[in-house]
């Protein structure tokens, strides 16, 4: 349609339109990328947390933030026995196996944790392992020995006797070399964890994965459950956009139809709609959502439904009514009646399209308000139970006192994304307003 084309051409003159559109397109692009690369079920599964994240550090910041600040925090290193050479010596009734897990450590800061994951395969009896830690300077620290269950984890960082002997938490003490306990310094070089295992079966095998957890991880960092925040930040985008868009479309369209219906039929229909609106306007949305969330369910779809239902008789009806009243008397509507247009057709095809262009800017700026609403609910602990969203990240951050503990990234990244969404839609909406509402243009 010509009017739209002209409007779009005019939009180009507004830098805020270009900027806003760029942000919106970026968010849409990110959403599409996310949905394609991390399918929905996979995202839900990942966000559920658990063992799949065991190789990730706890509360690690983003790499780029550390490097920008000139830091040298370590990334996580995983050394697997399947990638090393294993020496085996058989004996009567079993085998002796030596697994040397080697890695280089050159960072200025200590790792955050050390775990050893062990698996015995095809074994009927428990294996026995003894661990020795070899530092670059050739020193050997005995980490003790123990029986190994089928799927076992040895938390080297949480070995109290070792901590006693080192005088420091193990993941610092094991890397500190000769430096004093009150000012430990990293001894750089090649480290080795040697596993000496005794397997009591002919064809039993032992696999070991050593995780030396870093203090930074990826673009977004990790949370207290070792989950990569990227999952939530990325998946939060389509969820936020979809929620905002659906809520905005749902409330705008229903409100518009109801307002037009009232204006068209007048009389009792209009009066009823007006009274319902007046009652609905004084109903507080957030407390009702909190109530529904607390008493019933916090599913995002339910919340969306409640938002739309409560939005039907929103204050917008009054505005739309004022805009539609003069249109009701327009000769073209009388003409339409004279050639037999039905009431529904007049409302949908003759009244609503007339004010639609004026509503588009309002509609665009309405989207982020619903995005914020969804985030607010999540921050209040009423986020969707399974979906990863920005609000959920903020909620976790708040519950884990992220700011107090100095995990700024945990709060900042979702907040920036939320603000970016608000900014993008607001900038674009205001530019649209100037184009489609010529009254503002003269100012």
């Amino acid at each position, binding site marked *: *349609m010509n009017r739209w084309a002209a409007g779009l051409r005019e939009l180009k003159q507004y830098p805020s339109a270009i900027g806003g559109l760029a942000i919106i397109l970026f968010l849409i692009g990110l959403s599409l990328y996310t949905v394609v690369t991390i399918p929905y079920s996979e995202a839900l599964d990942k966000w559920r947390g658990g063992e799949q994240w065991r190789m990730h550090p706890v509360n690690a910041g983003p790499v780029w933030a550390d490097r920008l600040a000139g830091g040298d925090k370590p990334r996580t290193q995983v050394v697997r026995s399947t990638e090393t050479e294993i020496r085996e010596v058989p004996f009567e009734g079993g085998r002796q196996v030596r697994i040397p897990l080697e890695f280089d450590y050159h960072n200025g800061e200590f790792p955050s944790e050390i775990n050893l994951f062990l698996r015995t395969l095809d074994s009927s009896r428990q294996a026995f392992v003894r661990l020795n830690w070899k530092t670059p300077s050739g020193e050997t620290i005995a980490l003790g020995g123990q029986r190994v269950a089928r799927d076992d984890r040895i938390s080297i960082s949480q070995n109290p006797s070792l901590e006693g002997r080192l005088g420091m938490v193990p993941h610092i003490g094991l890397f500190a070399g000769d430096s004093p306990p009150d000012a430990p310094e990293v001894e750089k070089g090649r480290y080795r964890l040697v596993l000496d295992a005794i397997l009591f079966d002919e064809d039993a095998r032992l696999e070991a994965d050593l995780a030396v957890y870093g203090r930074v991880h990826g673009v977004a960092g990790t949370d207290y459950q070792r989950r990569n925040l990227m999952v939530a930040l990325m998946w939060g985008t389509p969820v936020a956009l979809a929620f905002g868009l659906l809520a905005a479309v749902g409330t705008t369209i229903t409100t518009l139809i109801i307002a037009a219906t009232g204006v068209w039929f007048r009389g009792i229909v209009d009066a009823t709609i007006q009274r319902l609106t007046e009652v609905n306007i004084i109903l507080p949305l957030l407390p009702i959502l909190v109530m529904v969330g607390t008493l019933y369910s916090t599913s995002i779809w339910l919340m969306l439904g409640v938002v739309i239902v409560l939005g039907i008789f929103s204050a917008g009806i009054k505005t739309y009514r004022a805009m539609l009243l003069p249109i009701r008397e327009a000769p073209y509507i009388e*003409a339409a009646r*004279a*050639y*037999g247009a039905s009431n529904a*057709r007049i409302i949908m095809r003759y009244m609503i399209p*007339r004010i639609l262009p004026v509503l588009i800017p309002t509609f665009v700026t309405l989207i982020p308000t619903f995005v914020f609403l969804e985030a607010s609910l999540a921050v209040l602990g009423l986020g969707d139970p399974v979906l990863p969203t920005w609000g959920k990240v903020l909620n976790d951050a708040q519950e884990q006192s992220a700011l107090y503990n100095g995990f700024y990234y945990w709060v900042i990244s979702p907040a920036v994304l939320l603000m970016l969404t608000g900014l993008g839609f607001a900038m674009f909406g205001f530019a649209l307003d100037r184009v489609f509402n010529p009254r503002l243009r003269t100012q």
Partner: protein
Amino acid sequence: MTAGSPLLQASNLHTWFELRQWGFLRVGSVRAVDGVNFALARGESVAFVGESGCGKSSLARTLLGLHRPTRGEVTFDGEELSTLKGKARQRYLARVGYVQQDPFGALPPFMDVRRLLNEPLIIHGVRDPAAREERIRRVLEEVRLTRVDEILSKFPHMLSGGQQQRIVIARALLLEPAMIIADEPVSMLDASVRVEILNLLRNIQRERELTLAFITHDLSTVRHFADRIFVMYAGRIVEQAPVDELLDHPQHPYTQSLLAAIADVDADNALEERDVPGGEPPSLLNPPPGCRFHPRCPKAIAGTCDVREPPRFAPREGHYSDCWLHDERHGS
């Protein structure tokens, strides 16, 4: 009048608008149409003439079924309008075309011409887009629009007033009506295109043998475009006669003063301001007793005109006038 039954007949037709205070208190009625009787024959062109506010548009809307008559009835082709429901009513609406005063306002501003001309056809169940397009092109040719392709994709505001009114006429013709009601079709157009549009309407009316009810407040244009004239005053028809008869021998004092007002003025653009005789137009809320014109009538007979409503007289052959002056007892 031609032979056969009339196409449209209004009998004792009243359209009153209730005036309410605070939305519910009845404070009175605007008697926009107040007891109108006439019959229109097939293929006849008639003009309803009267000053602004005398109820012409209300009468047109009542005939179109847009207002429900307060009393009386409209009969079209033997069927009473108020009894028509559903399909039958749609059929009636298709058979009566409507041309409004303000051509720009009469076209939905957000639809292009193709779209807005498709609307009536879609509503009346013409499913095939190619068939619709064909019918649209045919009527656009009939209303003498050139460069049809270009016009079809334009929006109303991109067209001139004359083109807009041609589109409105085309839309009224799309559904093959038997009758067209044109409510002051040229009063909002440039003087230069008025005659063209009136000629167009007249030609289409003759070619299609339509009944044309042509509403105007301007007596100076009716002679060439109507066969019969109804003069309206304060919601009533006060005089009716074939066009030449009425213009050459006006009987009712109101018609006489209307004609005198035209004769007074030569300049074209002054016509609109001076087409009304002096004095206040009557209140439709509280119409004057007796003859409604008596407060402004130079020949009013005290004791009669201000007391009793005049009946219909036929002072000349085929010429009717509601005025006590025609009563034998008063002479004239």
